[in-house]
């Protein structure tokens, strides 16, 4: 129910705060999503979408930080972490 799926903003439509929307691509499947709660979202950003509403932009630095933190804790010695590329689709 609280499922939210990350998708990439590929087109922004409108500028009225209550009606501002975006076309968001979920690995190629594009849906219309409200940006009312995420006015900071811009083209190319990843947003977390829940029941048709973007509830957050995904912070790419924090996403990388998670993997860095895990590695620094020494818990993941010997693991070859996949690189996190914020620009990837």
């Amino acid at each position, binding site marked *: *129910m609280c499922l939210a799926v*990350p998708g990439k903003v590929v087109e922004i439509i409108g500028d009225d705060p209550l009606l501002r929307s975006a076309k968001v691509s979920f*690995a190629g499947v594009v849906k219309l999503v409200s940006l009312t709660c995420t006015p900071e979202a811009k083209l190319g950003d990843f947003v*977390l979408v829940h029941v048709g*509403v973007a*509830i957050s932009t995904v912070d790419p630095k924090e*996403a990388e930080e998670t993997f860095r933190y895990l590695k620094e804790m020494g818990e993941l010695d*010997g693991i*070859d972490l996949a690189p996190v590329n914020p620009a*990837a689709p």
Partner: protein
Amino acid sequence: MKYVDEYRDAALVHQLAAAIARVTTRPWTIMEICGGQTHAIVKFGLDELLPKNITLVHGPGCPVCVTSAELIDQAVDLALKHGAILCSFGDMLRVPGNGIDLLTAKARGADVRIVYSPLDAVTIALENPAKQVVFFAVGFETTAPANAMSVLRAEREKVKNFSILTSHVLVPPAMRAILGSPDNRVQGFLAAGHVCTIMGTSEYGPIAREFKAPIIITGFEPVDILEGILLCVKQLESGRAEVENAYSRAVRTEGNVHARKIVEQVFEVCDRDWRGIGVIPQSGLAVRPAYAHYDANQCFLLPHTNGSACTECISGEIMRGVKKPHDCPAFGKRCTPEQPLGAPMVSSEGACAAYYRYRSRAVESAAV
């Protein structure tokens, strides 16, 4: 899919599980609040990767599961007797009320429609000006902005034939109720990540301190969940009880201020009856009087029914972490997804449905 695949990396998952085993010296019971996390834990078998002295119990974070039978009865009444177009998330249709469920109402000719978003229900109202359209607004804090937006959109579009039947619930009061219960066995929490995306982290510090229970804000993918468990066990082992954010790519300390503003504009805090648990004070959201004309409970005369719907269902004990689905004698026998006795067997995020789908064989072999 970006921000999903890298958090399902099998090598990372096993390494995190090994790290949890290294730091665990005593038995601990940890509750994940959110049904989405429960589903991921059971689907990916994450609990089976943990040391035997770590017990995960499954919390009440499934809005479909905690919506009262009375509200189901009211939704059925709206669709059948008042002739409204009743729009709902799909999971709600098979939840038993005190009478029939919404799917049966639909079979009897009621106009019950599944929508993806509450905003779709406003569109249906615009397209059907001669009919009343009611959206069954269930959900936790995560869904409250979208449900509030449906009211604001209806107001903006001057839609007069739209209202919402509200069954909103809030996480922090439920955590307090669980921790304060005499039979509580929860020692630490994985807090629901997307609830915190909206509300931020400030509500959890007082709970962690008062009940001496670590609270880790946790995401939904396997790496997220195991990282949450690792941080929780580390705190428990060292006697700390703090709030930590293990989902910082989606959760800011202050939450989403734009979303919170919309929620506060439309809703106010109220007492709420949680199915299987009972009334928890100040644990729900109701439509503010200023928006009463969008509140189905104000627009229609709705029945007030009492009753526990099914006395055999132990969902309340499961959602408080006291029991697990396979402790229920009806599980998989008299209660199945096809013929559910209780809501957690209906919802895709209900603990019973997750165990039935992914653990039936294990339960059968254990019973032999």
